[in-house]
């Protein structure tokens, strides 16, 4: 049917061409399989099973939830209103009538009628479409036709998070192979560790969060660097440098906060607070800058060690100059990473404030002060880690030299 579009290439006819391509493709796959060890085949198989199993699970896990879940089967637009708020922002409001089918609980399979109001901009609401799965609460008083009605409370998002997680895992494995696997493992270990550390903090009231985070930071550093780089002197130098760098950047930030008596930090806009804000902020700052400082420390120590390994007689002065050059190169982009990671999160809030006519300086000082402080403190940690990383690596190199 599509022969006209896929005209034969060169002297091959269409079918031959496809057979050729298909054949070489199969051959390539076959060759790949031959080169794979049993462990590789086994682990890819295991991965495929995990993927299929987990995707199947999140699409059929309704009975694991206590909250009623419905699947939208029909939507009707009831009403459209053009509105304008006090600051001349134009928007449209829509009302949607939704018919949905219950997926769990005693009334499984029954039909529920729902109403949904949403705006065009969708800052706090959204339009639902056929096939969407929603958490609802079922109204107790049944309507005149004995129809079930309910209120939408949330969206079932677990399947989307899972799919993105798998795309992430596959991209990292395909591109990074072994290193990709290690970074996935280190991410999981760190998440488990941080969750466990927070549990300890919440269940024992007399330990300060800063102390817990301090101990976690040591564990994070040791585990992540060992996982990424293995047991060797390069890693030990990086661990020492990371811990020193993070400690000094925290110390400087703390001293500045004491000297200025925290002027300019607006804790009131810090979201999700159930604990004293200062402590949560300092602990977040400590953990937040850790990754960047670790990155700088390992870059410094591995480049110094590789220079030394290439030429064992290299003078310490030459190592120092090339180390500083490498440090200068990474400084700018590393500080940029932290700045964007922190500041970008505030974009929607800034837009909401400004669109509601809040003054400029008020909006920025209120919403960005903590993010900026975090980014600046992280930047200080990054820059400090350059000389610290350089000198600890030199120290380890000299020790190695003295031994041999």
């Amino acid at each position, binding site marked *: 049917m599509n022969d006209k579009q896929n005209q034969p290439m060169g002297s091959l006819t269409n079918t031959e061409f496809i057979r050729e391509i298909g054949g070489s493709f199969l051959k390539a796959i076959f060759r790949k399989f031959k080169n794979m060890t049993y462990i590789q085949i086994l682990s890819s198989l295991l991965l495929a099973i995990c993927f299929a199993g987990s995707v199947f699970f999140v699409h059929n896990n309704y009975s694991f939830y206590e909250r009623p879940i419905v699947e939208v089967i029909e939507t009707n637009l009831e009403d459209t209103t053009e509105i304008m708020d006090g600051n001349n922002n134009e928007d449209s409001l829509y009302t949607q009538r939704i018919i949905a089918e219950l997926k769990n609980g005693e009334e499984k399979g029954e039909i529920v009628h729902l109403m949904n109001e949403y705006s065009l901009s969708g*800052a706090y609401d959204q339009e639902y479409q056929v096939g969407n799965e929603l958490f609802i609460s079922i109204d107790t008083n049944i309507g005149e036709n004995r129809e079930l009605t309910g209120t939408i409370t949330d969206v079932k998002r677990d399947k989307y998070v899972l799919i993105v997680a798998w795309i992430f895992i596959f991209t990292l494995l395909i591109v990074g192979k072994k290193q990709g696997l290690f970074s996935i493992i280190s991410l999981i270990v760190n998440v488990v560790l941080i969750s466990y550390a927070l549990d300890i903090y919440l269940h024992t009231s007399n330990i300060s969060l800063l102390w817990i985070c301090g101990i976690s930071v040591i564990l994070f550093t040791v585990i992540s660097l060992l996982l990424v780089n293995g047991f060797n002197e390069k890693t030990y130098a990086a661990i020492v440098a990371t811990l020193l760098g993070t400690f000094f950047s925290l110390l400087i930030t703390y001293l500045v906060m004491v000297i200025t008596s925290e002027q*300019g930090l607006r804790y009131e*806009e810090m*979201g999700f607070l159930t604990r004293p804000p200062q402590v949560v902020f300092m602990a977040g700052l400590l953990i937040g800058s850790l990754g960047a400082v670790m990155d700088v420390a390992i870059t410094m120590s591995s480049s110094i060690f590789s220079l030394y390994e290439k030429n064992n007689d290299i003078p310490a002065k030459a190592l120092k100059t090339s180390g500083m050059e490498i440090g200068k190169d990474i400084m700018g982009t590393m500080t940029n990473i932290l700045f*964007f990671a922190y500041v970008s999160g505030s974009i929607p809030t800034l837009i909401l404030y400004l669109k509601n006519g809040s003054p400029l300086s008020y909006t920025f000082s209120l919403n960005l002060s903590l993010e900026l402080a975090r980014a600046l403190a992280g930047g200080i940690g990054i*820059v400090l880690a350059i000389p610290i990383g350089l000198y600890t690596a030199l120290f380890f190199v000299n020790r190695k030299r003295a031994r041999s």
Partner: protein
Amino acid sequence: MNVLVWLAGILFLLMTLVGGKKGARSFIAIFLNFAVLFLTIFIMLDPNADPIILTIIASTAISCITLFYINGVNITTKTAFLSTVITIVTLLFFIVIITETAMIQGFSEEEIGELYIFSFYIGVDFVKIGAAMIIMSTIGAITDIAISIASPMREILIHNPSISRKELFESGINIGRDILGTNTNTLFFAFFGGYLALLIWFKDLAYSFGEIVNSKVFSEEMITILCAGIGIAMIIPLTSSITAYFLVRTREKEEMSK
């Protein structure tokens, strides 16, 4: 004196002490990037401006500043720039689709409390703004990887002038693999630090696992982290192939002219 002014002053002092002229330039680059970000936010306030196009323009400007202003205009920064822009545009479309289907745009139930005085019907498209936010938080890491792969690749070509394109590409991939772990770590910890309050909140209010996983705020943070990781991994083969292509092509041109 203000905490921020003090910290900025200390950072500037340290950057010039350690990095000299290049350090000072890096510090100025941060301010220039800020200016671009703020300008973008201002233009986003206009409901007629498409946040996606704005984000692409802003990312191009930011990577120009980070790559060309700090590191100078040369073949490696040019290829790093090209691969950054390609990665950001591709990733952006992926993120828009995810934001739309997972419905993670805008504000969550948990955030709404302190914002109740505001009108939420402000006429700008929050799906696109949410996607812009996710891509912007990754852009620093993406440019970092691009330049960290492209510049050692040129060094390799200088030391082995007869290296083939394929070998050059493979050495680029190997460099990328080595920095993949530490770079993903940098972003993960940065995000964890920012989300610490949220984690404590979930635990303090005894959210069940099902509630956490399906909540808008958690899904949004999680998808941000994962998309950042995808972007970091994606740019490695892209930069390696683009840099290998252009480096080998310029070498061939030089040989032709000889």
